[in-house]
Every structure is written in structure tokens, then in C-alpha cells.
């Protein structure tokens, strides 16, 4: 254990690069657990945020403010009867959710939560990521085909054409970000996720603001395409509830269905992580150069602890405001305990050894959670696109725009015209 602590404190390499398989495995386990917890939290947050946008309360019964609702749901899904339609292609039907989940989670191998906080640093990291995340569509087609039913088939067809078209626009945007990594003094570009962030550090700006507005446009294209890629509103046609009942997972239930659910949210986290890495400076704290110095460093290092302490305070206020009725005793105790746990985490984050190492991860997660909130926001605001309009938007707006941005970003440095 001491060895491990030493390692994470002093290493300058990711465990994968260092060839340290034991620590790489531990990292994988931590990330897997972290993503699963994030999916659970996201499930609760989506319900609550959406509910508050829609003048209702959301889950309130299971646990204080419905905090245990996702866990109750997960338990319910686990103990449900495992139904497989008699007409289904059994092997493919079984394989489809597994494929989707594996691809969604594999992506996280190269996501850098900090300069050393990644399972491994591949020199083709971004390509690996795009490649693996596109495999998710395979699982969806398999699900649609194996169900042997009309609605899933239509959903799968929609999904595959949608993903394939938006991947092109997405690729264009990614290439322009990768090209921007060459704008350093040595002019060497990179595909490694970690070095992309380091390049932004060297250029003292996020790629979002580089060559304004072209960096921003590329980011915008990616931000739209990633919503389409993850089949979320307003591009949720494959599972359009009011049209196709539940789209490709109509025939799925219980645990298999929950795998699709898990994969959808994991994929959302994954694409948001790509966006953060490529355009929003990855793990870097805000203004690392403009607000440089020991004082600022110390100021920003209190953010993680402050976040948790504020959350603890909010939970505490919630506890105090609970109705004074004997029926609320357990709920009150639960929320108090939750506040205590949050407070404990907050205090733990004040310990210098932890405080210094948690910085990167904190800022990365904070940036990703902005995207997660945006996902919920879109869902509360937008109607759904129709299939042909979606295709039109993809092929006639996004891809030409992506190509234009790519041309500018590629050509401008050749004329020594960079801003």
C-alpha cells in the first residue's frame, strides 16, 4: 500500500506506460467503480434536475430526497425476470448489451484524469478512443436485429445511420483540434490524450479559444455531434419513446436493459471527457497562466474541499428543513448522515497529501459535469428532430462546417498566420 501511495505521489508516468500492471489493474478498478457511481449519481441528478425544470419534485420517497432511488431501481432490475423473446436470435440478443457496455467502458482506458491519472497513455490515444466508441453502434444494430421485431429494427436502422453520419463531423472537429497541437514552438503534433492537454498548457490557452472562432466552431460541431452520437435528446430518435416505443431496446428488460442504460450514460461521460480533453484544457485548473503563482495555486487547491463542504452544508440545511414529524425520522437521519459523509470527504480533501493529488481529477470531473448538466438541460428544452432533418443537419450543415474549419486550421499555420 505504501508502495502504491509512493507511486501515485511521485510517478511522472501513467501505470500503463510504466509497465506496472498491478497498479494499472487497480486504476481500472477505480475507474470502473467511479464510472458506475457516476452513472448512479447521474441517474438521480437527471431525475431531480429535470423534475425541478418541470415544476415537480422528482423522486422523494426512497431515501431522503430520493437519494436511494437509483439503488432501488438497480435492485429491481437485477431481480426482474430475464425475458428473451422466443423469436429472438439468442446468441446475438445476449451479445448485444455486452458489446455496448464493453465498448463504452473500454474508452476510459486512455482518458487522462490528470497527467499521471490514466490507465495508460497511448500515442494514438484519440484514434483509439474514436475507434472504440464507434463500435458501440455495432451493439445497437445487433440488439435491433436480434430482437426480431419491428420497432427495434427501425430504431437500430435510425441509430446506425445517425451515428455513422455524425461520426464524420465529429472526426473533422477532432482533427482540427489535433492539428492545433502543432502550434507550439517545436511544431510537433500529437495524438496522445495526455500530450494534447500538455500542448494546451504550453500554448497557454484552451483550444476552445485558439484561432478564435475556429477552435470554438470545432468545439461546437463536436458538442452537437456528441449528443447525436450518444442518442440523447434532441437526437434521441433511435429510442424515441413517442414513436418507436423504446427503439432498439424495446424487447429488453431487467438486467440486460440496465446494461444498455449503463452504457448510454458511460458513453455520455466518455464523449464529454473527449470534449474536455481536446478543447477545455483537460485537467488544468482555470487560468493556470494568467493567475499563476503560489497564492493562486493555494486558492484553487481549496476548491475540491469547498465543493464538498458546500454540498454538506446544503444537505444539512435540507435536514433542518425536513418536516418535524415522527414519520420523517429515518429520512432525517439519513440525510444527516449523508451530510456527515460529504463533510468527511471535504475534510479529507483538506489533507495536504490528498489535496495536491486530487486537483487534476477534480477539475476534470468538474468540467465533465458541466456537460452532463447540459445533457439534462437539452432534454428538458428541445423537441425531437425528425429523421430526415437530422440527416440534413448532419450532412448539409455539420460536415461542410467541419471541413471548412479543418481547412482553415490546417492552412493558416502554413502561411504563418496563427492567432
Amino acid at each position, binding site marked *: 500500500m505504501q508502495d502504491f501511495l509512493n507511486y501515485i505521489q511521485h510517478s511522472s508516468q501513467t501505470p500503463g506506460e510504466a509497465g506496472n500492471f498491478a497498479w494499472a489493474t487497480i486504476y481500472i478498478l477505480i475507474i470502473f467503480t467511479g464510472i458506475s457511481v457516476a452513472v448512479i449519481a447521474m441517474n438521480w441528478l437527471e431525475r431531480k434536475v429535470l423534475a425541478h425544470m418541470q*415544476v415537480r419534485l422528482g423522486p422523494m420517497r426512497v431515501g431522503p430526497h430520493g437519494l436511494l432511488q437509483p439503488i432501488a431501481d438497480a435492485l429491481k432490475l437485477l431481480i426482474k425476470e430475464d425475458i428473451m423473446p422466443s423469436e429472438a436470435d439468442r446468441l446475438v440478443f445476449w451479445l448485444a448489451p455486452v458489446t455496448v457496455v464493453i465498448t463504452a467502458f473500454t474508452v476510459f482506458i486512455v482518458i487522462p484524469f490528470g497527467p499521471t491519472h490514466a490507465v495508460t497513455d497511448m500515442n494514438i490515444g484519440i484514434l483509439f478512443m474514436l475507434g472504440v466508441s464507434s463500435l458501440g453502434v455495432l451493439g445497437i444494430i445487433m440488439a435491433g436485429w436480434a430482437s426480431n421485431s419491428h420497432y427495434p429494427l427501425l430504431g437500430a436502422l435510425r441509430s446506425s445511420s445517425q451515428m455513422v453520419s455524425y461520426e464524420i463531423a465529429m472526426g473533422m472537429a477532432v482533427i482540427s483540434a489535433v492539428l492545433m497541437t502543432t502550434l507550439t514552438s517545436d511544431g510537433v503534433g500529437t495524438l496522445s490524450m495526455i500530450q494534447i492537454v500538455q500542448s494546451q498548457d504550453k500554448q497557454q490557452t484552451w483550444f476552445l479559444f485558439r484561432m478564435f472562432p475556429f477552435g470554438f466552431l470545432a468545439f461546437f460541431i463536436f458538442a452537437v455531434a456528441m449528443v447525436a452520437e450518444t442518442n440523447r435528446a434532441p437526437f*434521441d430518435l433511435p429510442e424515441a419513446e*413517442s414513436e418507436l416505443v423504446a427503439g432498439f431496446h424495446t424487447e429488453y428488460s431487467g438486467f440486460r436493459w440496465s446494461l444498455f442504460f449503463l452504457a448510454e450514460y458511460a458513453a455520455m461521460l466518455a464523449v464529454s471527457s473527449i470534449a474536455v480533453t481536446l478543447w477545455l484544457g483537460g485537467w488544468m485548473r482555470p487560468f493556470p497562466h494568467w493567475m499563476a503563482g503560489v497564492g493562486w495555486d493555494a486558492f484553487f487547491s481549496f476548491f475540491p474541499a469547498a465543493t464538498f463542504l458546500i454540498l454538506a452544508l446544503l444537505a444539512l440545511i435540507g435536514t433542518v428543513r425536513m418536516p418535524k414529524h415522527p414519520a420523517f425520522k429515518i429520512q432525517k437521519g439519513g440525510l444527516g448522515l449523508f451530510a456527515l459523509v460529504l463533510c468527511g470527504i471535504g475534510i479529507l480533501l483538506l489533507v495536504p497529501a490528498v489535496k495536491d493529488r486530487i486537483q487534476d481529477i477534480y477539475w476534470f470531473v468538474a468540467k465533465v459535469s458541466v456537460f452532463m448538466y447540459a445533457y439534462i438541460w437539452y432534454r428538458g428544452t428541445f423537441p425531437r428532430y425528425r429523421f430526415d432533418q437530422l440527416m440534413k443537419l448532419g450532412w448539409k450543415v455539420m460536415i461542410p462546417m467541419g471541413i471548412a474549419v479543418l481547412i482553415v486550421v490546417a492552412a493558416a499555420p502554413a502561411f504563418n498566420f496563427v492567432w
Partner: protein
Amino acid sequence: MSELTKTDPNSTANLDLDTPESQIETYLHHRAAPQPEERTYLDANELVLNMGPQHPSTHGVLRVILKLDGEKVLGTECIIGYLHRGVEKIAENRTYTMFNPYVDRMDYVAAVSNGLGYCEAVEKLLNIEAPPRAQYIRVILAELNRLASHMLWLGTHALDIGAITPLFYTFRDREEILKIFEKYCGARLTTHAFRIGGCLYETYDGFEQDVMKFVKFVRPKIDEYEALLTTNRIWVERTKGVGVISAADAIDLGVTGPVLRASGVQWDLRKAQPYSGYEKFEFEIPTGTNGDTYDRYIVRIAEMHQSLRIIEQAVAGIPEGPIMGKVPKVMKPPVGEIYHSIEAPKGELGYFIVSDGSTQPYRVRVRPPSFVNLQALDKMVQGALVADVVAVIGTIDIVLGEVDR
């Protein structure tokens, strides 16, 4: 793949012609089979998709059989009757008064309008008229009900198109209307608010204030719905040019109500043949021009504002006096028949009542707007996509309780 797509679409040899399903299939094959030169892409077979009766957006238990080429709709067939309760037959075994609550169960989101239509029809048959105060109360409640019906329509229609938030907004505001109903007559949905010859209940203390407070409350709320949808790019793209029906087609099909008005026909029974004192109120008939889903949305939103105008005038001018006309204890209308129709939120709601001189009607025939308007579905979705079918079902604004009766 199911058996349907495996078989040759033009062959009916292996279909059992006696079952209703196979009759439908045969019908669809004959009607929607494309010409040889217009065969589907790559000569693939059509996909027959059964939508409903259990489907999230067929508004109850409507069943639509879609014939698809990929996502393109080649033909539709509506199958109704899953909510058939024989309301018209029940009428023949009930006295005129006893049948009154049953009409609330037809269009259950606009129960007041149903009751108004029935009561007025029987009053016409008995040759009596409700006193002015009763007419004003009827107008206020009927217009409130029109608002409630349009709100429910807007919420569910937006939900079908994928915007989930308006549903909760409209239900929040519809609740205020239902509260007024509850205070007035004790029921929220199936109100049974009116009686033949007038109203049973006098308005409660503070009724006028409640209604005026609601009018003030709801105006900015309607703007709120509009802020979410009217200029929303996706909403406009999803509704403009979708489900177009021309004025001539709409008249031929007997379509009435906002669907007809959105096609540019200025036809509103409240103006055309005023009943219950509607001639005393100032209001406009909003019309559209293109007859598409967007125009129907705009027309209904404008109608909500007009309803508020009527309510304001009615509350301001409500006269004192009795609320019940002179009605015989035992109603025995003279032998004869009567057709009376009103402008329900969904269109022309007519009652055709035949009296044989006894206490029970010989025959009651209801002309429900939803049922007649639903016929336009096939015309509206020809060549559209699956997503449009859902949008068009929503925009026609059907209530299956009324379609099936």
C-alpha cells in the same frame, strides 16, 4: 421477420379472409400496393407496422396499421372500437335526465362541452330555453373547459414531438381550471355541471373572483408555452408543412374545429349559429393559412386567448335571476327529432335525438368531432415519415372515449 413480410404482398391466397385482420391486410395490399414502376427502393417488401392499441402516443387505444417503405408511410388504416361502451345504445334505455351524466364520459377532457351540447339539444326538443344567468354560467364553464382541453392537447402534442417540459406546465395550469370546476360542482373531470333547463348549482361565493384571478394568472402562462415552442427551431421544423390538409379536402371529409380553421375556413358554430347566448360576446375566429400542424398549433393558442376574452366578458356581464327554467318533472318531449350541434374544443359536437313521446329517447346519435376529424389522418400522412404520423395524431386532437363512444 413476421409472416406478413415473408409472403408475396400481392397474393391473398394464404390469408383467411374471414378474420378482420386479414381483411385489413387485403385492403391495405390492394390500396397501397405501389405501381410496378414505383416499386419500393431495391424492390424490397413493405414493412407493416402495427402501432397501438398499446402505444405511448396514440392517445389511448387507437390502433393504426402503417404500411412503410423504410420510414416512409405508404398507407394507414385506423382501427377503432377498443373503448366502445355503447353510449348511444345506453341512451335508449335511460330517461333524458338519466342519460345526462353519460355524455361526460365521451370526451372526458371536455366534459362540460358534452353536457352543454346534450342539455341544449334536449331543451330544443322540449322547446324551452335556459334562463340568461344559466346561459352565462354555461358559457364561462364551457370556455374554461375549452382552455383545459387545449392545454391538455398542447402538453401531449408537444410530448409526442419530443418536448417533455410543456406537458408539466400545461398540467400545472389546467389544475387551476379543475379546481374551479371542483368548487362549482364537486367533480373535476366528469363534471355533470348542467341540467336540462339550466344549471343545478348556483355559483359559489367568490366564483367570479376565482375566474378573473385565473384569467389573470393564465395569460402569462400561455406566453410561457409559446416561449418554449413557437419560435423553437426544432418545433417549427417538425410542424411546418407536416400533415397538410387543404380547405376543400377538410370540408369534404367533414373536418371541423381548429383543424378546419387552420386550413383557412372561418367556420365556428359559436358565430355561425350562436347558441347559449354566444351572440352577445365579442371574439374573433382565429384561422390559419397553410393547414399544417404549425398552423393548427397557432390557431389553438389564439383560441385560448379568445376564450379568455369571452370569459372576461361573461363574468363582467353575468345577470342576476333564476338558473333553472320551467322544466316538467317528467320529461316527455313531443314526437319528433332534433339535431343540435355546438362548438366543442375539438370541433362540431352534434346530438341527433329522436323522440317517440316517451320518457326515454328512441335514438340518440352523437356526432363526435374526434371521430370525424380522425378520418383526415390518412390524407394527412400520405408520404410522410413515421415521426409525422405521431405528430399528426397529436395535432388532430382526438380523445378515444369520444371516437369509440
